[in-house]
């Protein structure tokens, strides 16, 4: 029990305005229309990041190509030969030399993904979907890092990204 019962009764006594006949007629004509094949809902707005996503992709591809070139150029042929020759001769003292065994190339050192904004944009019916879905949009910054253990050089690529997830309601 609460002490708002009188107020609740007062509110319930007020009735919402009735539906207009023109409105019912509009709904009727739309329901009677054959259902058109679903197109992408007009209320789904493609973020500009998706429209220009190919630019980011191209940039990443270029960065990967540069990395490959750098790796090839950093391979010293003499050092490799010397290491091979040394390993062919058995030695009594097998103390390893870390500097010589480290690969002189860039290797992946880590990646981070920082989600700095996440938003629940509510329910919608996605394309060709019978079930409603919840749209979750997250804006992140991803950073990929490479390091050259031999030289200590490091390289990192950081770029913003935006993800849109459509989660079926039944899966929640």
């Amino acid at each position: 029990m609460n002490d708002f019962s009188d107020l609740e009764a007062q509110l319930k006594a007020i009735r919402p305005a009735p539906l207009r006949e023109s409105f019912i007629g509009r709904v009727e004509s739309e329901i009677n229309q054959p259902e058109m094949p679903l197109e992408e809902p007009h209320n789904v707005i493609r973020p500009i990041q998706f429209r220009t996503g190919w630019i980011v992709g191209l940039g990443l591809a270029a960065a990967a190509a540069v990395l490959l070139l750098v790796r090839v150029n950093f391979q010293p042929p003499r050092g490799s030969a010397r290491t091979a020759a040394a390993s062919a001769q058995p030695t009594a003292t097998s103390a390893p030399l870390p500097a010589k065994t480290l690969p002189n190339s860039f290797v992946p050192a880590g990646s981070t993904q920082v989600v700095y904004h996440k938003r629940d944009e509510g329910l919608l019916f996605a394309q060709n979907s019978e079930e409603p879905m919840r749209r979750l949009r997250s804006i992140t910054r991803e950073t990929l890092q490479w390091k050259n253990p031999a030289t200590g050089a490091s390289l990192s690529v950081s770029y913003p990204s935006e993800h849109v997830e459509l989660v079926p309601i039944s899966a929640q």
Partner: protein
Amino acid sequence: MENVATHEDWKVCLSEVGPGLVLFARQWVQSLADAEDIVQEAFVRFWRRNHNITNRALLYATVRSIALDRIRGDSRRARREALVVADTEQSVEPQFQVEDDSQRVVVGALDRLPKDQREVLVMKIWNELTFAEIAEALGISQNTAASRYRYALASLRKILPPQ
């Protein structure tokens, strides 16, 4: 999937939930016509997929989603129009069937409630949703829905003159 609903089924459903849905949609748009458009889109979409309205929380969530999408899309246009409308006499279609002055005062007080409280109040009083359904539709906890409802009633009591 074949739509097995008869012609009269949807009319019965619409007559039951329509007035409350339009009232619910009016919270986000100024004109009755816009609210009707929102409800029409949600109801038709919902009916074609579900053929019934048993999942009321989802129906209200759909109305809310369409209304909020419309607000985002129309925000620029609305700002421009608001400047024009502000200079003219605005005739807003009534949201309620007001029978006397005391009801008119209550309706006036409703407009002064914070949006999140009014939203829950409209769903509870005029659409008779449970707190569980309200919570599901709004994506909040049942406790939050119940709290907002109580705050709304308390606010109304403060606004309304003592009887």
